[in-house]
């Protein structure tokens, strides 16, 4: 029988998350973020967190909620600052920020999950991202050595998941979630729809359950849209 990963609720899912830990959180902007777990982190009041996440949310949603409570000590991201509180904390030195090229961030998370401790990439060579990093030429082109990222907890959001922790994401809400799911010592998945074993086609799963330690059905998803761009009907 499959190994079951279901926990009852977000409280149980987040058990063991403590101050000073390193967390990975999936999502791109506000798309595909683990809303339920972020709310629970606010409730738990853990602080001094290092958060690895492509972005940092907005003032009143996503990781912005943790920033409001000054729960984050360090952000490791590719693009931040869609919110004022972030800017204030960063400029005042309260918040440490490590900016990483987006592709290197994605690959470093994957590497962390895949047991690849380091790899060479051209991204960032000759810039401040490359400072202090080993440079090597391949095919006449300079590359820098980047190292793997892992986390005490990886927290991801999927569309559907089954009891074995197998996950399917929807559209571009996939983004960083699959790599982060691989890179957590403990990976928590919150899903919009939790289904019994055998309901997902084994051929259509994006994240195999082996990477997931806890799964629960989230609720009250707001799924806020950051830039609502539309064209008029006519």
């Amino acid at each position, binding site marked *: 029988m499959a190994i079951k990963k279901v926990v009852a609720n977000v409280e149980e899912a987040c058990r063991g998350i403590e101050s000073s830990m390193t967390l990975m959180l999936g999502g791109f902007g506000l798309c595909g973020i683990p809303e339920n777990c972020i709310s629970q982190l606010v409730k738990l009041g853990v602080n001094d967190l290092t958060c690895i996440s492509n972005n940092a949310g907005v003032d009143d949603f996503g990781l912005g909620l943790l920033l409001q409570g000054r729960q984050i000590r360090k952000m490791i991201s*590719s693009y931040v600052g869609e919110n004022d509180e972030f800017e204030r904390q960063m400029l005042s030195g309260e918040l440490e920020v490590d900016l990483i090229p*987006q*592709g290197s961030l994605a690959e470093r998370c994957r590497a962390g999950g895949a047991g690849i401790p380091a790899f060479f990439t051209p991204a960032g060579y000759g810039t401040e991202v490359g400072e202090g990093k080993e440079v090597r030429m391949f095919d006449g082109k300079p590359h820098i050595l980047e190292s793997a990222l892992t986390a005490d907890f990886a927290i991801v959001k999927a569309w559907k998941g089954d009891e074995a922790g197998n996950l399917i994401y929807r*559209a571009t809400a996939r*983004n960083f979630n699959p*790599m982060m799911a691989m890179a957590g010592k403990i990976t928590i998945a919150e899903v919009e729809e939790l289904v019994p074993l055998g309901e997902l086609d084994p051929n259509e799963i994006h994240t195999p359950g082996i990477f997931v330690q806890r799964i629960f059905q989230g609720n009250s998803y707001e*799924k806020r*849209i950051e*830039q609502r761009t539309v064209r008029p009907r006519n």
Partner: protein
Amino acid sequence: MLDKNGIAQRIAQELQDGYYVNLGIGIPTLVANYIPENINVEFQSENGVLGMGPFPFEGDENADLINAGKQTITTMPGAVFFDSATSFAMIRGQHVQLTVLGAMEVSQNGDIANWKIPGKMVKGMGGAMDLVASAENIIVAMMHTNKAGESKLLADCTLPLTGVGCVKKVVTNLATLDIKDGAFHLLERAPGVSVEEIVQATAGKLIVPPHVPEMQL
């Protein structure tokens, strides 16, 4: 002189049938409005979609379907979703044929600075460093000068770099220029712009051929 749409329109002439294209935020996004007839190109957005279509009709927005600018979008038949590692595998592995990016500064050896102004709030490089480090074919879309009237085409960039020696072509409101052999090479004047104006607005080394045609838009 071109406006932003004009710059986008000129860059769209560089599109070729079968190109996969990554468009940065700002002027580059407008390039999608000027795809030449009879060619098929596909737009890659680094957050994980190939085959982007137009914005959705009002009421059809899907929070799970956005582009790298976090705007709600739609997809075309044949579209595909993928994760961020796969997305940058496409970019780093040179499967994307053309990248169009904005810039704050470009140098005569092809360096680009477009992500950070010291002393100001830093928002991050997003995918720009991966894009410029890997793309074979990068076109910069920008104004020729900044708001203070200073040239953005320099001998050396003064701002923190995004990438080194990677830009091959620049389209501005004044001109189309190639970058090679450590210099800007003037290819075309924008409509109504004189060579003299371009020379005045270019701080880096500029090679001006005897005849400089006007852009055809």
